[in-house]
């Protein structure tokens, strides 16, 4: 995190030297986006906090932990495909879940399907690509998400 903050600072300085006005505009745009999303982020964190209170850590580790096997992946893939959480909100949530015992590879499957497979956005996608192409695309990405999860589990279990 510290490294990232330093990186942003350097970017800011370079941007400021290059163009003062553009930089201010960028800062304003970014902070406006932040304020717009802040309520959503905080309320998701609240809901996850409450859920974590009721779900004992052993249970989470057993069903969603690094060694939960295929059940964890299937659950993560289903949740990720149907959920409609913006990525920016999902990362803080994922960070919280990992600290509570959910496996990294399970999180990878969840995040990948969340980003790439959209069950409820399928009607929108069909309007652009047509039925066949949309279904194939979602299916291929679902498979890819599971493979990405498997790949990561190899490294996390080493």
């Amino acid at each position, binding site marked *: 995190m510290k490294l*990232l903050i330093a990186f942003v600072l350097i970017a800011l300085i370079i941007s400021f030297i290059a163009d003062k006005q553009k930089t201010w505009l960028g800062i304003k*745009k970014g902070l406006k986006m932040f304020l717009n999303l802040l*309520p959503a982020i*905080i309320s998701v*964190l609240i809901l996850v906090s409450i859920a974590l209170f009721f779900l004992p850590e052993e249970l989470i580790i057993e069903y969603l932990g690094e060694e939960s096997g295929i059940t964890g992946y299937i659950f993560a893939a289903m949740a990720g495909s149907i959920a409609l959480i913006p990525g920016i909100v999902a990362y803080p949530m994922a960070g919280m879940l990992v600290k509570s015992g959910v496996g990294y590879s399970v999180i990878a499957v969840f995040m990948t399907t969340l*980003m790439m497979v959209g069950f409820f*956005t399928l009607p929108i996608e069909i*309007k652009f690509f047509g039925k066949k192409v949309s279904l194939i695309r979602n299916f*291929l990405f679902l498979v*890819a998400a599971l493979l990405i999860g498997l790949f990561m589990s190899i490294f996390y279990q080493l």
Partner: protein
Amino acid sequence: MKQFIKKNKINLAVIGVFSVFTALSFFIDYQPGKLIFREHFYPFFQGMIIFLPVMFILIGLGDVWINRDKVEKHIGKDSGIKGIILVIFLSMAQVGPLYGAFPVTYLLWKKGASIRNIFIYIGAFCTIKIPMLTFEIGFLGWKFSLLRTAASIPAIILIGILMEKIIGKKNFKIKQP
């Protein structure tokens, strides 16, 4: 301000109820309420509240500096490897949800981008956006982010190639709803 409240009605209600519940819990010494706040909510919130604004400033900067039109000219049908790389870079600079990518693919298709590049764009848009990567690194760590990106890029390119093979070059159309 009015619009902000309207758009965030449910979220603000959740935050309001939680704040009152937490305040009361501390006041009457209700253990579960104190625990939810102290053990789960607060440690995470604390780290996030410094990190997030900084990341959003980066997103804002990217938004003002990156010119999408320039890149879009170079990803046509015969663009080959160069096209793939450009598409990946173009999509990395974007923000927004999956369905935000569809209108962009329509523009790309109209400008003559290949099927392969269009689906690579979608895949890359979903998985390796720079703003998202900064969040990922911040909340899940370098190792996670590197591994996931390393696995995702080949998967995305492969899916692009597969899609082009399955659909065939001729009968593909993107409509604008």
